């Protein structure tokens, strides 16, 4: 049984079929999902994390069906994500952002909070220490008390990663984590991801446009186009796949759809 498995996932928005019978499976390591704009990559993430309801298909995580669960339940099971357009809690500090990510791991009730019980105090200091550790991991510990909206762009991306890690996921979904980063920053981030896979045994699904990153870091690559899976395999196999080249560069004589990013 795979760690994570999606079968014939279909999603329609009105008359538009955003996803059409997409299969996807991941055992371990890093899998990338690539494809031209509008191929349905982020929609797939939104279904995996419970933000959208799929019209058809099934998604299982460690054998447990996910469709129909609320986003917070899915997070509690061990899947967490970042967003394509960074969605931090802008008016909260970096460490508070990370602490919110730990929400599903806190087993305290209202009474613990109001009475400042011993377990509450212990939990709070444990959480803070862990949050600092995570910020340290992504290289942000010096900015722990900075308000998120004041952080530079690259730091905000890394903070979002730390926040997602705070939920102690077994599977991490990253939506274009290197967007807007220089090649050097992207390289650092990828080394960090590789480290996470090696140290924590994390599985990662990556949506990525930066082909150099994809080819370097991925164990497997899945290519979506128009809501359908058109190719899957090792980075090398995908690179040489004719349909992929067509999807990115267009067939002879057709327009250069998606070529900009390829």
């Amino acid at each position, binding site marked *: 049984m795979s760690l994570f498995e999606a079968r014939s996932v279909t999603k329609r928005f009105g008359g538009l079929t955003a996803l059409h019978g997409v299969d996807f499976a991941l055992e371990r390591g890093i899998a990338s999902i690539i494809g031209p704009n509008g191929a349905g990559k982020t929609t797939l993430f939104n279904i995996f*994390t419970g*933000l959208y309801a799929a019209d058809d298909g099934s998604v299982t995580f460690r054998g447990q069906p996910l469709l129909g669960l*609320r*986003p*917070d339940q899915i*997070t*509690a099971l061990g899947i*967490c*994500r970042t*967003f394509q357009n960074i*969605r*931090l*809690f*802008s*008016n*909260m*500090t970096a*460490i*508070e952002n990370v*602490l*919110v*990510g*730990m*929400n*599903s*791991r*806190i087993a*305290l009730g*209202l009474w613990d*909070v*109001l009475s*400042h019980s011993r377990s*509450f105090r212990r939990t*709070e200091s444990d*959480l*803070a*220490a*862990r949050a*600092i*550790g995570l*910020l*340290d991991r992504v290289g942000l*510990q010096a900015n*722990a*008390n900075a*308000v998120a909206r004041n952080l530079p762009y690259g730091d905000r991306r890394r903070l979002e990663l730390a*926040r*997602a890690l*705070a*939920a102690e996921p077994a599977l991490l979904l990253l939506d274009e984590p290197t967007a807007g980063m220089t090649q050097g920053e992207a390289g650092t981030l990828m080394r960090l991801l590789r480290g996470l896979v090696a140290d924590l045994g994390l599985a990662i699904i990556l949506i990525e446009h930066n082909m150099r990153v994809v080819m370097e870091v991925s164990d497997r690559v899945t290519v979506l186009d128009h809501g359908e899976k058109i190719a899957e395999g090792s980075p090398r196999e995908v690179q040489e796949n004719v349909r992929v080249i067509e999807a990115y560069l267009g067939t002879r004589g057709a327009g250069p759809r998606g070529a900009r990013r390829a």
Partner: protein
Amino acid sequence: MIQALLTVALVVVSALAVAKFPRSVLVFLLFQGSLVFVYRAQIPEWLRRSLLAVALLVLMPAIGYFNGYYLEIATQVGIFVALALGLNIVVGLAGLLDLGYVAFFAVGAYSWAIFGSPHANVIFGGGFPLAGWWFYVFLLVGLGTAAITGILLGLPVLRLHGDYLAIVTLGFGEVIRVLANNLDKPINFTNGPKGITPISRPPAPFGLPYGEYFYFLVLLIVVAVVIVNRRLEDSHIGRAWEAIREDELAARAMGVPLVRMKLMAFACGASFAGVMGVLFSAKQVFINPESFTFLESIGVLAMVILGGMGSIPGAVLGATVVTVLNLQVLKGFSLWLNELKNAGVTVLGYSLADLPTQFEPAKYERMVFGVILVLMMIFRPQGIFPARRRQRELAQPGG
């Protein structure tokens, strides 16, 4: 050191001044101002705490001995501080705009008003009013009833945001008021617009006069409310509320259970209003639906905004400023003007006695209030004491 001496001197002098001129509104304002100064001054923490404690526990009741109305003002301030702190949870922390907040105050007030007065005999036959000590039980009953009402309001509005939520809560506030107005038939629950009276008061301990008794009780509840508020804010619950306010979708994706957290915000906010409602009905002895109008909800919201959304000191100060302005400054100014008129004073050849009554400052309460709000929004939109992010001490990363 100099500042510490100065602060102590200011509090003592202003308190003495109130005793010397018990009728001067400005002197009492000076005393209130000195408390704000104590809060802001750079003095040792123990000094700040003891000064505030002395001022609120000793000086204020003593001032009440010279002028009972000031104690009434202080009590009213306390009631509105608790209301503002409750609304601050819903609006300031969780970001759920609630325009019908006074409904929960009404629920608390009516829960004691009905059972603490002979009126309950109309519904249940004999045996009422309940004995005075039941009042303390009803503080909890009012808390619970208001919290449940908060959840009942929260359930249908879970999916609503911003403007839509505001309109629905506004409607809810009106529904409660209209219910209070009309539930005198077929079974007379609320006695309609005539209101309920007399509402029992608890026996005051140590033979305290009721003015002092309610002042201390309000103070006790306010302190409890502040502590509860601070503990909630500095916990995963408070962080989850703020996360919902900042980005609801991201909060859900990070594992915040949206439904539970929103309902908890409504229930917590409502419960403070419920407790104060019970106390309010006992203090006033008489309540009717007029005390729970839309304007009251707006007033409490204005206190929260004026003080600074999501900020506990802000809510306290906002409630104080608005209440003092309404009950003390504008009224005091009217009285003073009236005295001038009666004394036949003339200004630049114009006799003040000819001034039409329409110019009475007390009649401009809402306008002055509105002007202040507009000016605040232009020059200090974040409020008087905006919420400050808690700065954490950073230990060395250990794991």
